[in-house]
């Protein structure tokens, strides 16, 4: 009995390994078929896919297909919204199934570049949630499909195509290779029950740090939030204009930000552990703030305070504030992989996500700043956006947008992170 079972298991594994072994002898044959959940019918159709086709044709082609949406999986609210709000809309309107896959952008990049290296013509990623340096890198390396956003009816209907953030992503021309998804902006957060002050500029921030010595810090760069925080401080000290066309040269950048580096070194003296060390992630900084170890935190999500209060992780007295000169803001986008198996479906899905309806639900449920142009909305749509209850401790949308500074060109960001590590930490 056992004997038979064991020998059959052995037979199976050996067979399995033999198959693997045999196919490993012909590794140069490009994979012709990759298993994925898209029905074969849709595969056949995608071969006739023509991005310039009439949008109705795309809708017809996308019918019954699956669109796979890759993006960071650590935001439970967004996961819920995509699965419970966006997916049913796509199913009902277009008979498209949305498959949301959680994956960090660096793994997405690794996957795409590996697939390119192996010559895989049809991968498994359709839509990618992306922006900034990652967009720059994927577009430069020919990993994205496009241009496509100019072919979407809702681009014309809802998006201001002359908006800087629709034309440029971290200073890099988008050229219709990605569609806006949501807007983010750096905000500062503290608890009015603990500290009265809301520093309006870097000088006041320094005074604040002095007063609450050892209770202010920020995430170590290259953490996304920490990096944006430092850029905001740099803008406050040396202005943002000069960076917009700066050469990505370390010496040039260093000279430009020298006054800010001096400020950061001065600030170090009063930071948590004298700025000798910094928490590795923005999550850790936020946890320290929640526990009362810090008197201030920061977020790239402008409405995170409202969500935090609703979830019970922040006190009701926690509030959002900005610098008078403003804080950096960016848009995040949706792109389509060059080897996407379902490009027609992706275009239809993206078109729907930039509609007033989906953008409004995103604003309601996630409180992500919408990307649709307010002027282009009908009065009913305007009313829906106006009605959104933003929650406690946050700033109204127009105040945020009036103090919104453009992000630096993508290729300057790693240079600043490098300089910070050399010139600021422990100095």
């Amino acid at each position, binding site marked *: 009995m056992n004997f038979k079972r064991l020998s059959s298991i052995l037979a199976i*594994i050996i067979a399995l*390994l033999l198959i*693997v*072994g045999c196919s490993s002898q012909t590794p140069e044959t490009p994979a012709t078929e990759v298993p994925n959940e898209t029905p074969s019918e849709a595969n056949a159709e995608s071969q006739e896919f023509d991005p310039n086709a009439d949008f109705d044709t795309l809708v017809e082609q996308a019918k019954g297909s699956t669109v796979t949406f890759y993006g960071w999986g650590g935001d439970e609210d967004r996961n819920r919204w995509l699965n419970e709000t966006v997916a049913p809309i796509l199913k009902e309107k277009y008979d498209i199934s949305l498959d949301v896959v959680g994956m960090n952008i660096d793994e997405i*990049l690794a996957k795409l570049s590996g697939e390119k290296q192996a010559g895989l013509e049809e991968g498994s990623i359709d839509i990618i949630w992306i922006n900034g340096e990652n967009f720059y*890198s*994927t577009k430069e390396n020919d990993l994205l499909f496009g241009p496509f956003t100019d072919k979407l009816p809702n681009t014309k209907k809802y998006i201001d195509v002359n908006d800087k953030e629709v034309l440029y992503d971290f200073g890099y021309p988008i050229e219709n290779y990605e569609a806006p998804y949501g807007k983010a902006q750096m905000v500062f957060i503290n608890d009015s029950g603990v500290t009265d002050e809301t520093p309006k500029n870097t000088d006041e921030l320094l005074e604040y740090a002095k007063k609450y010595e050892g209770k202010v810090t920020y995430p170590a760069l290259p953490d996304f939030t920490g990096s944006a925080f430092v850029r905001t401080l740099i803008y406050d000290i040396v202005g943002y204009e000069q960076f917009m066309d700066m050469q990505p040269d370390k010496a040039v950048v260093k000279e430009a930000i020298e006054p800010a580096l001096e400020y950061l070194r001065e600030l170090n003296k009063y930071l948590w*552990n004298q700025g000798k060390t910094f928490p590795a*992630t923005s999550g850790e900084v936020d946890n320290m703030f929640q526990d009362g170890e810090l008197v201030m935190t920061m977020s790239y999500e402008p409405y995170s305070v409202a969500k935090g209060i609703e979830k019970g992780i922040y006190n009701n007295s926690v509030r959002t504030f900005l610098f008078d000169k403003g804080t950096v803001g960016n848009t995040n986008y949706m792109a389509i992989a060059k080897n996407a198996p379902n490009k027609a479906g992706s275009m239809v899905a993206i078109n729907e996500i930039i509609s007033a309806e989906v953008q409004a639900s995103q604003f309601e449920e996630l409180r992500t700043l919408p990307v649709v142009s307010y002027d282009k909305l009908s009065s009913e749509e305007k009313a829906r956006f106006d009605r959104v209850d933003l929650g406690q401790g946050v700033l109204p949308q127009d105040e945020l947008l009036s103090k919104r500074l453009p992000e630096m060109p993508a290729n300057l960001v790693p240079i600043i992170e490098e300089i910070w590590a050399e010139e600021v930490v422990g100095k």
Partner: protein
Amino acid sequence: MNKKTPYILIMPIVLLGVLFIYGLVNGIIQSFGYIPALDLGNFTLDYYIEILKDPTFIDSLKVSLKISIISSILAMVLGTILTTALVYTGHTEGKTLQIIKLAILIPHTIVALFSISLLSQNGLIARLFYNLGFISAQGDFPLLLYTENSLGIILGYLWKEVPFVAYFSLALMNSINKTLGEASENLGASRLKSFFYITLPLSMPAISKAFLIILTFSFGAYDLPFLLGATMPKALPVQAHLEYMHPDLRYRPYAMAMNGLILAVSWTMTGIYYLVKKKKGIKGDVHERY
């Protein structure tokens, strides 16, 4: 028995081994700047040279070596005591063993969560001290995490590795104790003597193998040093991971070269291990005895 038998037995490992080496070579090639898909087509040592020239590299190397050597030696000693405790108190199965396994099955990221909750200046131990009046503020509690002394990382590794060493060597020590240890006791040797002269030496292959595994693992893993380490200098794997996350794909060879250097150090450690083992000769190597 049949001459073919060993070749049948090793067939699966050979096939998997070929795959492994093939994958490894494919990865290492990238560290020499060869990634045609990204228009990088020249073999070059430049990436290695650039990293070796960077003064922070030596600092990172020191941090990593310190963490891995200290934590592995301590884990080996404490782990061996734990194995002994398990064997001689008759806890080689059942609930106690399940508790030991708990530590092994918990991923490093969760261990980081534990460390922060317990050891940080805001952690439970600091809070306990505060409530007992030993300290008057968070800053008074010694900094165990995020500092150059890497104490928090070492403690985190110990928490996982002491049980690992025990678990890894338990089966062998138990079977030796059952067959040879108890026999020698029956022949009149004292317990202590039979342990130090028979059971422990014969268990050494498993213990020293466990040591090598945790040594190379703690040298190459980035989770704990990333979450609990100092901002500067960073452990080598953390540096490699950050290079890997660099969004510019054409930066990839740097990450791979740094991983290549981690590989070189790990292989050197392994080489030293086998040299030492060879020098010690037959002593303690149970395989050669049978």
